[in-house]
């Protein structure tokens, strides 16, 4: 008799996600307000905006986006759109969480936007953000956990394209080992950059193999709508297994280099923030524990706290990148 051994990728029928769960059900913004409607309004808005001349649109190329079901865990409840877009760390527009939303929408233009690919690559270009999205084959939507180094978390439906596509397009030379992401510098329109809270412009970097990982993403939208200015329009790095400060916002330059680049927070306080910034519940921040996190917009007035997962829940996918590394030293 033939006894069939199921392969480890074969899932039982019971594990199949019910169809209704495919649809995004964000966490309600308040008990009285259901934010599903932001989705509907967004879709309608996009349909209308695609009729506008390009100069009047935000960076909208690739919308509406296709949902990539491989990157949608039905157990993840997306955070309400209003929370994602009103609670931001974007020091270019102020150090308070509520500052970026008003300050990034007072005349700072994110369209048109040019991004420069440079360094150790064959295809050095300066390219319009919309054109880049189209070159990448449009945009898709993925739902990722988001963990801030300040011990709070969200679940965000990002729209955009895999970073690996951009890297293939840039065509790196064999000497390229790291990628640097430079945020815009415009003190005239970014009040925070007129002060010296950080060393401007904001820099972030990844090892090339990290940047090439399936999960690394370049976001151009949230919830199927073009990414709002306060969230880092029009191009924002997304690396879900790392702390939020690695997600360089409003990127103007992507530079391929041979040596580990400086990253802003490491320059500011290297004992607190490292180059890797992998989410790790066992390595504390000098001032607080990383063992657990506040879930934004959950649990009513008292809120909710949950245990932080190794590599923010992406351990299976990314742990291999750091095999043999002392994560306590390379935090």
């Amino acid at each position, binding site marked *: 008799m033939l006894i069939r051994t199921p392969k480890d990728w074969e899932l039982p029928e019971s594990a199949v996600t019910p169809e209704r769960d495919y649809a995004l059900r964000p966490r309600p913004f308040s008990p009285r307000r259901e934010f599903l409607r932001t989705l509907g309004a967004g879709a309608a808005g996009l349909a209308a905006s695609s009729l506008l001349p390009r100069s009047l649109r935000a960076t909208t190329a690739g919308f509406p986006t296709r949902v990539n079901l491989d990157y949608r865990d039905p157990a993840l409840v997306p955070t309400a759109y209003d929370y994602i877009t009103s609670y931001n760390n974007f020091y270019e527009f102020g150090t308070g969480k509520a500052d970026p939303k008003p300050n990034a929408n007072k005349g700072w233009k994110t369209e048109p936007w040019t991004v420069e690919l440079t360094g150790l690559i064959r295809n050095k270009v300066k390219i319009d953000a919309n054109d880049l999205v189209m070159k990448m084959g449009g945009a898709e939507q993925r739902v990722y956990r988001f963990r801030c180094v300040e011990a709070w978390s969200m679940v965000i439906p990002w729209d955009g394209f895999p970073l690996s596509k951009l890297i293939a397009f840039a065509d790196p030379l064999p000497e390229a080992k790291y990628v640097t992401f430079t945020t815009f510098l415009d003190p005239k329109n970014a009040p925070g950059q007129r002060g*010296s*809270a950080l060393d401007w412009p904001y820099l972030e970097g990844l090892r090339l193999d990290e940047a090439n990982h399936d999960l690394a993403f370049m976001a151009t939208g949230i919830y199927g709508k073009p990414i709002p200015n306060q969230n880092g329009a029009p191009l924002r790095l997304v690396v879900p297994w790392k702390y939020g400060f690695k997600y360089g916002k409003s990127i103007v330059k992507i530079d391929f280099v041979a040596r580990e680049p400086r990253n802003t927070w490491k320059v500011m306080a290297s004992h607190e923030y490292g180059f890797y910034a992998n989410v790790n519940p066992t390595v504390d921040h000098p001032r*607080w524990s990383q*063992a*657990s996190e*506040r879930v934004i917009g959950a649990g*009513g007035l008292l*809120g909710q706290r949950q245990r932080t997962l190794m590599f923010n829940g992406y351990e299976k996918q990314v742990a291999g990148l750091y095999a043999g590394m002392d994560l306590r030293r390379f935090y």
Partner: protein
Amino acid sequence: MFAAALLRSKAFVWIVLVLPGLWPAWPLFVRQDPSALTDPLKFILLHYGFVACVLLATVLTFSPLRVLFPRWDIALALNRHRRLVGVSSFAYALLHFSVQVLYVYDGGFETLAKEIRKPFQLTGLAALLILLVLTITSVNALIRRMGARRWKNLHRLVYVAALLAAYHQADARKTFPLQVVWIFGPVLLLQIARVWKQRRGTPARAVPTPGA
């Protein structure tokens, strides 16, 4: 003068001290401000800590103001409320600490125990404990029993509490703590001015009048 008369009234000062405790209800329930609702407990936590620091700094300006402007009726009015304002600073610090316990609770107290050992939080806790001791010893009966000199010496710990609180508040930030400068900066200036005036004004006396 009307302002001084108002400030002399205990009822008025009570209202002024209680109102900041109720303030979070406005953004959370009335305005339903998304940036406050993202994590209401954190909003309340930071707010109460802020109020505790402001009140601590405020009460430390009272006696220097009296020394520097001995005939200013507002300075005299304020000095009637030193105990009330000092104790309310403790009350807000205690609220802040209680909210922190709730905030960090993640099914166990391990995270709390780990965090409280870090300098950032240890300084806050130490300041709270000092304020607790000062509050307990602010009961009339105890003041009498301790005697003026011992009581005064003990209550000089409030300056240590202020230093600890300023460190704690500054360390809560990732960048330059401007807020801490404008909360505690004026206190520092007034205290320096007070000491300077007392030194200059009492050259003949062997022991300067302690103003604390």
